[in-house]
């Protein structure tokens, strides 16, 4: 028995304090997770609506694109030929944009490292040189990591609140869609952890631009022609960026929810570990105490025997 009784007692006390802190953090993250899930639900209503309106509006354009794509891959001349919107048409990819979303802080288990590791592998597999992509980062962890490796970061955003409002991220989503329109990159992906449930999340890379996930068949059932004021092009110029922005915002909310969930599970396992350690320490404390008592009794008995 190496450690003395007092040492073990001190260790137990400090582990207990740690476990109190981690369990408090677990509860905080738990309530943040609930709130985030609610925000995500509310946002779904908006996303559904934006998607519906966009689909109604571009149904005819989507069909033209589908036809053209089955004929000859992609064609930039489509834009001029059919008056299609640049956000809908694929163009030859010279540069790719990535938005990488992580947390600002650690203590979230494998949340940050999962995103960073898998993004890095993906970048190395898909691109020959760093000139082929631009990064935009949300969260401190990935910003520092990619900066440390000398990668070019076009936009960074730190200090996102726990329940990010659309206003907070407006700048980065606006910038992202604008850079696409200005031709800084020809594709935009968002890399983040998708929230599956409170125990697991899943790394996801989603294509945001050009807009490709609209299904013209969803709008087919409606025969009546829309009045488009002032013109289709002008509406698309407003609606399509709004749609793309809503997709990116959705990803950010999803990532935040996953972050809270990851933090909650990380803190839960930290608390459980602390409790296990306390149990082990208590056993060795009792043993040490028992040994001390036995020793004392032997000494007394020995002393008494010596007197006789």
């Amino acid at each position, binding site marked *: 028995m190496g450690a003395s009784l007092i040492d073990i007692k001190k260790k137990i006390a400090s582990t207990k304090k740690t476990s109190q802190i981690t369990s408090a953090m677990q509860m905080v993250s738990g309530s943040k997770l609930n709130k985030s899930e609610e925000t995500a639900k*509310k946002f779904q209503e908006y996303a559904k*609506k934006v998607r519906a309106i966009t689909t109604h509006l571009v149904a005819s354009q989507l069909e033209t694109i589908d036809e053209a794509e089955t004929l000859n891959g992609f064609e930039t001349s489509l834009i001029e030929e059919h008056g299609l919107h640049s956000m809908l048409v694929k163009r030859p990819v010279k540069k790719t944009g990535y938005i990488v979303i992580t947390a600002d802080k650690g203590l979230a288990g494998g949340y940050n490292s999962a995103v960073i590791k898998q993004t890095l592998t993906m970048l190395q597999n898909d691109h020959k040189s760093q000139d082929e992509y631009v990064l935009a980062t949300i969260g401190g962890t990935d910003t520092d990591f990619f900066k440390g490796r000398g990668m070019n970061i076009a936009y960074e955003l730190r200090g996102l609140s726990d329940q990010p409002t*659309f206003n907070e991220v407006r700048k980065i989503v606006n910038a992202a869609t604008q850079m696409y329109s200005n031709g800084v990159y020809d594709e935009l992906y968002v890399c983040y952890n998708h929230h599956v449930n409170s125990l697991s999340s899943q790394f996801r890379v989603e294509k945001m631009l050009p807009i490709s996930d609209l299904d013209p068949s969803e709008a087919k059932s409606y025969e009546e022609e829309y*009045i488009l004021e002032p013109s289709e092009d*002008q*509406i698309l110029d407003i609606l399509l960026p*709004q749609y793309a922005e809503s997709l990116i915002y959705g990803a950010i909310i999803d990532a935040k929810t996953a972050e809270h969930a990851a933090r909650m599970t990380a803190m839960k396992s930290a608390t459980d570990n602390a409790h296990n350690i306390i149990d082990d320490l208590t056993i060795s404390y009792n043993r040490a105490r028992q040994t001390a008592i036995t020793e004392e009794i032997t000494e007394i008995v020995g002393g008494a025997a010596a007197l006789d």
Partner: protein
Amino acid sequence: MDYLTVNVVTPNGIVYDHHARIVVARAIDGEIGILPKHAPIITPLAIDEVKVKRSDADTHVDWIAVNGGVMEVRDNLVSIIADSAERERDIDVTRAERAKMRAERRIEEAKHVENVDELKRATVALHRAINRINVSKHL
């Protein structure tokens, strides 16, 4: 009697959901009034107020401050999607006043350094703030 269903949705949730007899909004090219049985239409909105006459009371009028966005009408369903929107009773006037002051300061600064983009953004921000203040006065 026919009536319209009015939905105003923002990324932060549904802001407004009621039946109405008439909806008056300002599109980017002028004011537009929607009555029941209106033909399907899609139009972008300006940063302005949307006026809704409710169907459940003759005199009841609701005002909603919308920050741009797009309005779709089909089958008596009016859907407005916007970055942000607030009903007159939900507007925090002091916050709006602060936002207005901040926007004015940004405009001054942008003019000073001749930053055209910043000036544009600040002007939009000022519009938004003024719009919210105006709408809150209807209460």
